[in-house]
């Protein structure tokens, strides 16, 4: 009888003093299941659950982990004050040196970003940055709001990051003036390394916008000790390539224009009058009837693929038809006057081939495929 009573007492005692480590482990797990939901209200509940576990005593191996998780979620939810409080708890408990080091770094990062005085500015910056970079909707409202935020808070330590977001955002929106204004502001006002990075971005943007002279000036203003030399070298190479391509484009454009006018003049001479040439040009030559369906078909086939390539195929088709039209008309005009010599036909053919090559180059450059072609050549093709 006494033995049974003792056994019962032991059992009751064991149930009453459940293992605090095991309890904390289970509580941590439960909070974790709430934390992954993604829904802000549930995440908020998870933070509260972690805070409760962190405050519970005795301290278990999960106490500091609970505060670390609370801090992580709070920072992600842009509640920096709450994150700061949780991180301070990790430091205070201080049992896991890895967690402590991480908490110290996170605190330093939050402080570097301005401390409590800038919590609201930072939260708004984060929100607007995600709208600018992330959304497919019209970001102009977010861009305007972020611009105002930066101008109202010039001492905000991350203003430079915001300026860069503004520059890239306005560039994507096609507002060159605003884009360049913010690039310039970021280059001038950033902490030195970040400012130089912004200037390098500015050089790249100017090159993209074909403002090559300005790009050259900005490249020269780059502080070589503060910026990635490979990046600067590549920016310089890109600029030089842009100059070369521009010269080539202008040269080919002029050549095509001269050849086109020359062909028309030649046809007029053969037909005797501009009026006759006009009448001839209105009726497409046989080459056009041959090429037009082919060009249409190819454009259709290219449609579902890479949009740049589809655009290139379309424009190459247009150029081909124009060249064929002019070529056919001039050849017919010549034939109408006298039989065409083999030499004349050969020259004609070579000029047409040259024009087609020039037109293809101009189209590829115009749709922005040159870099892709060059990269494919240098880096090998993607696998599919």
């Amino acid at each position, binding site marked *: 009888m006494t033995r049974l009573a003792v056994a019962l007492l032991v059992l009751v005692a064991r149930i009453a003093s459940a293992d605090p480590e095991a309890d904390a482990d289970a509580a941590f797990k439960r909070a*974790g299941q709430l934390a992954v939901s993604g829904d802000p209200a549930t995440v908020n509940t998870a933070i509260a659950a972690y805070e409760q576990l962190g405050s519970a005593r005795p301290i278990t*191996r999960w106490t500091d*982990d609970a505060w670390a998780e609370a801090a992580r979620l709070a920072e992600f939810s842009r509640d920096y004050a709450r994150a700061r409080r949780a991180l301070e708890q990790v430091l205070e408990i201080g049992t896991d040196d890895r967690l402590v080091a991480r908490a110290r770094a996170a605190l330093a990062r939050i402080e570097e970003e301005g401390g409590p005085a800038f919590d609201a500015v930072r939260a708004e910056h984060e929100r607007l940055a995600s709208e600018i970079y992330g959304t497919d909707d019209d970001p102009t409202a977010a861009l305007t709001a972020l611009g105002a935020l930066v101008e109202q808070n010039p001492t905000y330590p991350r203003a430079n990051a*915001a300026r860069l977001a503004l520059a890239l955002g306005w560039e994507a929106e096609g507002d060159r003036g605003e884009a360049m204004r913010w690039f310039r502001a970021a280059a001038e006002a950033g902490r030195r390394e970040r400012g130089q990075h912004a200037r390098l971005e500015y050089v790249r943007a100017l090159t993209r916008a074909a403002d090559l002279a300005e790009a050259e000036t900005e490249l020269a203003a780059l502080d070589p000790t503060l910026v*990635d030399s490979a990046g600067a070298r590549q920016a310089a190479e890109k600029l030089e390539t842009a100059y070369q391509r521009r010269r080539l484009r202008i040269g080919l454009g002029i050549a095509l224009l001269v050849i086109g006018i020359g062909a028309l003049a030649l046809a007029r001479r053969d037909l005797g009058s501009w009026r006759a040439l006009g009448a001839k040009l209105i009726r497409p030559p046989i080459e056009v009837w041959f090429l037009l369906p082919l060009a249409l078909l190819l454009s259709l086939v290219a449609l579902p693929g890479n949009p740049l390539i589809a655009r290139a195929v379309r424009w190459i088709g247009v150029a081909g038809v124009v060249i064929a039209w002019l070529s056919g008309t001039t050849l017919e005009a010549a034939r109408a006057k006298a039989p065409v010599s083999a030499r004349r036909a050969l020259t004609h053919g070579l000029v047409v081939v040259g024009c087609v090559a020039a037109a293809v180059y101009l189209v590829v450059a115009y749709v922005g495929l040159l870099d892709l072609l060059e990269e494919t050549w240098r880096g090998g093709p993607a696998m599919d």
Partner: protein
Amino acid sequence: MRPATLLLCLALAPACVKGNPIELDGDLLTEGGTLRIDGCGYDLTTRYGAEAPRPGTAVFGPDPTPRHVHLGIMGDPKTSVVAQWRTKDDKTLASEIRYAKGASLPAADLVEEKAGIVFAYRSTGAEEIRVHQAHLCGLEPGTSYSYQVGGTDLDGAKSYSPVYTFRTAPDTVAHPDSEVVFGFVGDSRGGYDVWQLLIDELSDRQPDLILFSGDAVTIGLTQYEWEEFFDRAEPLFARVPLVSAHGNHEVNAVNYFSQIALPGDQENFGVDYGFAHITVGNDTPDDISKLAGEFKDKIAADMAKSNSARWKLFMHHQPMFSASTRHGPSQTLQDAWLPLVDQYKIDLVLNGHDHDYEISRPMINKQVQATNDNATVFVVAGGAGAELYDNGSDYWTLYSEKTYNAAVIRVRRDQMTMEAFRHDGTQIPQGFSKSKP
């Protein structure tokens, strides 16, 4: 070998065309070689184009100052690490590591010493590049060590790096509350100013391991971009081991395999770290038919071996699922490797190659699932500096944006989260989180 690679090799690098050994300062660079690493239980094998590895000797070149100090993993990260470096002269043969248990110790307290090994490789258009490695094994799990690398010449002159601190992977049996943090980043090629900013952002988040998804440089055979890559990353890489997947721009170059110490054959392997197992694959083999053959088998073997791991990650360079308008999804890789991802219920697949950020919905066999359970999420984060590509959206896309980016993946016993951020430090709003019962 693919035609493009072959062309590149023919044009640029005799080193990658098998055949004649290369003459190097009178030494013969043979077809690599193998050295047993004392106390570690594994071999170090160098590639064709590099010398066979050998123990360092007490010889200084004109400037023996160590540089590009970075850590790698070849054994169990709980108990081992590889420190790797070069010297400014690339001639020095003296090679050793001094270390001791404890974080941020003064140099005088680094009482343990281990001899290093050296081997040189030839990079296109450059002098010989000489790599030093020191392999530490038998370390304690979850423990900080201070170390410096360098050497001593015959006259007793010393030349050492600054003291750095690393930490071994935790023992999750003894510490079920262990959290490990992986920095995840890729495609730095040609954009090292952005790379630098991301390295700073990653350092602020104190990762335990860096997962790099490939395309560190524009052409793996040329050295000058490697210099930028390692120069800028040294403050982080000297403290945190690097695990890398081979990217198409690395073109299977001897530079890649010589400078980054990795387990197994350095192409298809696995690493256990904390509660995670990371399988790594090379999706740009020298012979494309290996993808669905030899490489698939190796990846399958690693996934089978680690099937009981709590969390499973799979990192390779080119995405199976990407909505970017540049490369987009890879049917070839879906055919070759997706069945393994489904069979072994990989939690997270990590890719780069498309220079944007994209995270997929949970998927099984190309079908979007309502929940994460047993399904796989695919992440593209190829935004470490290479010129950005346009992002896009397809049926699998949960979120995408066109920004420079990196991410941290936090792994605990019952939950794994990923938070991505931009190079300006702002948070990308859509990450990943999953818990397991």
